[in-house]
């Protein structure tokens, strides 16, 4: 088994008396797409900064591509492509000037530079607009250009902080395909942060769930989804009233209930609540045609994990 591309042990970062990253152990396999999933303020951006050596750890260690982030951060950054939360483009420069600057920074050979830039810009359909100043571009186009910049030097590791935020659906799909190809065909390791469990499930081979700086769970998305006690049930029929939905949602073992035409979807915190929900629907006078219980999605499991963590936190307080 190859060495992990990213390995952290008890990685911790505090700012004053606030612990933003709390003793995190991560092992990101080489050649995988790994997602750090968490809500706003979970510490995802700080984790990326720690891995890049932009912020030193308060405790613990982090090794990327075999290099210690405390002592060899320069070597890590030289082999890593980055798209941070903001695209970080020089808006008064043209797309070509922005890329040329970074191609020089990465010391791409002169002959390779122009070819590589053209190849990547053409792939993302930005080539015809290469001489335009970036200031007038849409957020989606800026984001694509930032991706091109991150890929210029063929990095062994790609760190993307919320890469699909602001992208439309087609571009999201294109990005997913590109990242998957990079990891699975070209052997690069991709580490992304995201707030969207559906995106993590669609894109990542592995997911780690982070909340308030603590790692709640990690593993393959399908395994994570099944590991929790959550479930998803779909009841087909007629007569699902708003009162019924409110009644179902008021139960402690239900996290969400939604009616769409003749279909009532219920997300359960606890699988055993399934029968009780069906009884409730029948007693309300609704016609039930079929009941289907599905395994929980990553989204449901994620929400349940966050709720459990919050409940545990308040119980301690």
């Amino acid at each position, binding site marked *: 088994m190859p060495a992990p591309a990213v390995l952290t042990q008890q990685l911790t970062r505090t*700012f004053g008396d606030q612990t933003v990253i709390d003793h995190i152990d991560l092992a990101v396999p080489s050649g995988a797409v790994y997602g750090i999933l968490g809500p706003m303020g979970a510490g995802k951006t700080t984790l990326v*900064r720690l891995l*890049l*050596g*932009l*912020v*030193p750890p308060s405790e613990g260690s982090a090794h990327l591509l075999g290099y210690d982030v405390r002592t060899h951060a*320069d070597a890590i*950054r*030289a082999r*890593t492509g*980055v798209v*941070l*939360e*903001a*695209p*970080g*483009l*020089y*808006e*008064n*420069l043209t797309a070509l*000037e922005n890329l040329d*600057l*970074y191609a*020089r*920074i*990465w*010391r791409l050979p002169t002959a390779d530079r122009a070819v590589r830039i053209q190849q990547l810009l053409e792939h993302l359909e930005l080539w015809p607009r290469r001489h335009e*100043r970036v200031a007038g571009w849409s957020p989606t186009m800026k984001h694509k250009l*930032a991706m091109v*910049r991150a890929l210029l030097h063929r990095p062994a590791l790609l760190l993307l902080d919320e890469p699909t935020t602001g992208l439309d659906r087609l571009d999201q799909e294109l990005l997913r395909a590109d990242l998957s190809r990079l990891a699975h065909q070209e052997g690069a390791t991709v580490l992304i942060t995201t707030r969207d469990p559906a995106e993590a499930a669609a894109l990542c081979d592995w997911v780690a769930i982070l909340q308030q700086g603590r790692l709640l769970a990690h593993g393959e998305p399908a395994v994570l989804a099944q590991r929790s006690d959550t479930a998803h049930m779909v009841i087909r029929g007629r007569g699902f009233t708003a009162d019924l939905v409110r009644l179902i949602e008021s139960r402690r073992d239900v996290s969400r209930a939604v009616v769409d035409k003749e279909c009532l979807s219920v997300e359960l915190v606890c699988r055993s609540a399934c029968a009780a929900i069906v009884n409730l629907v029948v007693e309300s006078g609704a016609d039930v045609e079929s009941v289907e219980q599905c395994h929980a999605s990553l989204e449901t499991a994620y929400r349940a994990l966050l709720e459990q963590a919050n409940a545990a936190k308040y119980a301690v307080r």
Partner: protein
Amino acid sequence: MLPSMLFDSWIVIAKEWREWCCVRARSGWSMLILLIIAWSFVAPVLVGGLATGPLLIPVMWAALPLVLVGAMMADSIAGERERQTLETLLASRLPERAILLGKVAAITLLGWLLLFLGSFPGLLQQMVKPTDAAVSPATMSAVLLGVITPCVVMVVIVGALVSLYTASARFALLLTLAFAGFLMVGATVLAVGWVGAHSGNASATATPLAVIAAGLTLVDAGLLAWLLVAVHRDRLLAIG
């Protein structure tokens, strides 16, 4: 190690110049340069009637370049931090010292160019038609080279230091401009006082000028050393 650092700094210098000179405001720069050149003729007329006027002329010539380099330096670090381009630059392979040295060098060289543009035409005019025979154009040139030139460097380095220790671009700009103003008042007091006391005696003026120049250069070297020791990526990003 050193050639690599110089190469990396050169990339940053070129980027800064491209941003400032070529793109940011082409028409604005033309107007500014015209203004600076015009000021080099107007300044001697404004202070020429005073007893110590000719010694104040170089200080007047330095006013605009000093204010400009102060504003540029604050924008180059604190401003770039707020525009969120600095973090991506710091996430690249470039060492933080190369980034900082590149920015300092780019703005210092630009400041010296502006100082030259703002003083050379006026200096030529003084050679042709001196305002006061007591202070020669040669002494004025010496003041420019020995006093004002290191002052430009000082404002740039102080601007960089202030940007490292303040989170807001606006506050960094205010502090740097306040320092540039303080420096100009100091230079004026020096011109009127110490150097002015020796006017009329070129050889007697040379010694205090040399002392001041050496002192300023030493201060610049000390500030640069402080800057290079203080620079860390998290400090450049104002994190923590």
